[in-house]
């Protein structure tokens, strides 16, 4: 019965509304006062039932809840035979709760979407060797699972047999499917684009990388800042205090109407819900856009950041060498590129990989008589031609003639910090490529955006040599840059900034070898590649290692912090307004109080919801 009443709360609210409507109709249109009173009493009794139940249940666990205030207020209204008020107050309270629930679900929608990406079922091998569909909760470590084309991989595991292309975008951000063969590791929540594989479960449920990300976000949206903890403690005593004040006022003034009005006005709704709503909407927006905030404390501190310290390799730069410039000499370049690609395909060298990626997929030709010269390159025979691919030393060994123009090109590329790859066909230089670890695209624009948001200094700390560090620093227009630094040097440097200079410092790094710095800085931001270490040691995770999310993250943190302050102002303002109304005005009564109270709750929720749509303006 109890549960039935509680479950039908929204239907009860609707019935109340109908009864109240009927009551006013019979009174105003037909002049039937008694009928109206009966209808209003019915509405009040019906409406107050779920509220009473909630109040009693809360009392059982020693919590004085808002429901109790409303219950007593309605009883008081009954005593003074003001049935109009009692009916309207119960209706508004129920209807408000209904709207709150609906809007709250909206603010939580972003995170819910993330959670719903989690795999639900798995094909598990039973004792007979057949596979049967089971709930993902029933999978234990060591179980053998079958994953078919198009299915979500249910757990973190290792491929036992079969092969297929897996889309790992949800974990690593890599948009291109990755080939997984026997022995390869697969992540829960990623999708098998084609092929069929059998895997053995290594980590299940909350232990998987995906599970950890979800847990992190869920804990973050419920983590409390100092302000929130204060409000919570405040609310715990505030509600009983209001009850007490109501009783005292009633006892002294003998004015029951005033006493119950105070009970209704005192409901602490907007204050208690305002900050959590901003928090959950802000964190939800982040989660949707690849930015994980670890809680509202982090958001508050991040919004005050004035100095950002960067790691270089893998943070400001891509961390993977790629071809930055190409120069061609003579004709038949198409052929030369094909020869170069065919040779480089045989090599595991990072430079070879960069070159191959640049040339792309080609109709590779068979390569014969390969000779490798360590530290120089490869010479081989392709399509009947002698092809040399390597650096200047190899070209000299091969007696390749380097023209004056080529020498100038080489000097220019080296000046920019490139490693060189050259290709000569039959002793004639055809191709010159400069390969380096390049600055991520868009970093410069992102830094300008961050500066406009109030960040004063950008500092780069790197283990790399001074020359390279200065080149990158100049190109990006950083405030300061230091090379030859060990991880502990970086942490010391950050400590001096925070402790001696009073800066609020955010450190951006790749999360693995930078953990001391991540921990030392006020805010540690990891360019996560879905690694557990990155998730655990940092305060903010930029999923998919996407640097361009950094301005969004800072903007969102600032907007969320601002939103929280607005909600506190709204809540406190409303209470002050209502109290002033009781003291100074004639028109303040229970119904108006309840209306304003529920209105303010909806106002803070709607204000919080704006954060879901937060987006950085493209060009500021």
């Amino acid at each position, binding site marked *: 019965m109890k549960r039935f009443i509680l479950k039908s709360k929204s239907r009860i609210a609707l019935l109340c509304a109908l009864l109240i409507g009927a009551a006013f109709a019979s009174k105003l249109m037909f002049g039937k006062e008694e009928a109206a009173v009966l209808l209003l009493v019915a509405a009040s009794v019906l409406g107050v039932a779920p509220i009473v139940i909630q109040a009693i*249940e809360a009392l059982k*666990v020693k919590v004085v*809840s808002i429901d109790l205030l409303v219950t007593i207020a309605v009883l008081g209204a009954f005593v003074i035979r003001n049935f109009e008020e009692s009916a309207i107050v119960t209706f508004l309270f129920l209807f408000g709760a209904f709207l*709150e629930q609906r809007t709250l679900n909206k603010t939580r929608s972003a995170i819910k979407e993330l959670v719903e990406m989690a795999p639900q079922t798995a094909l598990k091998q039973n004792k007979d060797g057949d596979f049967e569909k089971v709930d993902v909760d029933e999978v234990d470590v060591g179980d053998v699972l079958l994953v078919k084309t198009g299915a979500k991989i249910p757990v973190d595991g290792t491929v036992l047999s079969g092969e297929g292309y897996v889309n790992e975008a949800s974990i690593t951000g890599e948009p291109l499917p990755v080939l997984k063969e026997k022995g390869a590791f697969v992540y829960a929540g990623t999708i098998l684009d084609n092929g069929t594989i059998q895997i053995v479960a290594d980590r299940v449920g909350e232990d998987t990388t995906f599970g950890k990300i979800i847990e992190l976000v*869920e804990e973050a*949206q419920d983590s409390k800042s100092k302000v929130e903890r204060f409000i919570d403690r405040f*609310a715990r005593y505030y509600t009983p205090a209001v009850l007490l004040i109501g009783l005292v006022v009633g006892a002294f003034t003998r004015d029951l109407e005033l006493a119950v009005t105070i009970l209704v006005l005192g409901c602490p709704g907007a204050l*208690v819900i305002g900050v959590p709503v901003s*928090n959950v909407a802000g964190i939800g927006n982040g989660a949707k856009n690849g930015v994980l905030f670890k809680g509202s404390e982090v958001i508050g501190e991040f919004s005050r950041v004035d100095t950002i310290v960067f790691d270089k390799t893998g943070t400001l730069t891509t961390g993977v060498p790629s071809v930055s410039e190409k120069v061609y000499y003579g004709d038949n370049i198409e052929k030369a590129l094909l020869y170069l690609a065919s040779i480089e395909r045989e090599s595991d060298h990072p430079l070879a990989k960069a070159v191959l990626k640049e040339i792309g997929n080609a109709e590779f030709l068979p390569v014969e008589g390969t000779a490798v010269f360590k530290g120089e390159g490869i010479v081989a025979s392709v399509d009947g031609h002698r092809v040399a691919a390597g650096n200047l030393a190899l070209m000299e060994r091969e007696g390749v003639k380097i023209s004056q123009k080529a020498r100038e090109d080489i000097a220019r590329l080296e000046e920019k910090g490139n490693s060189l790859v050259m290709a000569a066909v039959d002793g004639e230089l055809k191709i010159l490529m400069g390969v380096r670890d390049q600055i991520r695209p868009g970093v410069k624009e992102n830094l300008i955006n961050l500066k406009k948001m109030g960040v004063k200094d950008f500092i780069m700390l790197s283990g790399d040599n001074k020359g390279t560090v200065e080149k990158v620093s100049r190109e990006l227009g950083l405030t300061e840059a230091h090379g030859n630094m060990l991880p502990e040097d970086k942490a010391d440097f950050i400590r001096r900034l925070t402790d001696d200079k009073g800066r609020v410092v955010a450190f951006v790094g790749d999360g693995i070898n930078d953990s001391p710095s991540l921990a030392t800085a006020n805010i540690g931001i990891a360019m996560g590649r879905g690694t557990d270490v990155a998730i655990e040691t940092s305060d903010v995770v930029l999923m998919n290692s996407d640097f361009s999310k950094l301005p969004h993250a800072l903007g969102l943190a600032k907007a969320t912090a601002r939103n929280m302050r607005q909600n506190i102002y709204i809540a406190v303002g409303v209470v002050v307004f209502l109290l002033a109304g009781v003291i100074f005005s004639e028109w303040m009564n229970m119904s108006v109080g309840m209306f304003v109270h529920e209105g303010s709750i909806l106002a803070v929720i709607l204000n919080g919801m704006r954060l879901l749509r937060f987006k950085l303006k493209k060009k500021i």
Partner: protein
Amino acid sequence: MKKATIQLETLACPSCALKIEGAAKALDGVVKDSVKVLFNASKVKLEFYESKVSLEDIVKAIEALGYEVVKWQTN
């Protein structure tokens, strides 16, 4: 000692969280400091001693407060 996660219907008011926390802590066999009600995720996480209280009892206690329990699991 076992850890449990209980998924509830959507919680609407922060005071609901207080109530649920109080109810769970009141049960003998539930580790008091371990009770954590995640308001936004609408989840309860806690640790308990199976010898003293069953997970079903904990679920019943929460349902008695008027909150629907969607799913529960131990780990």
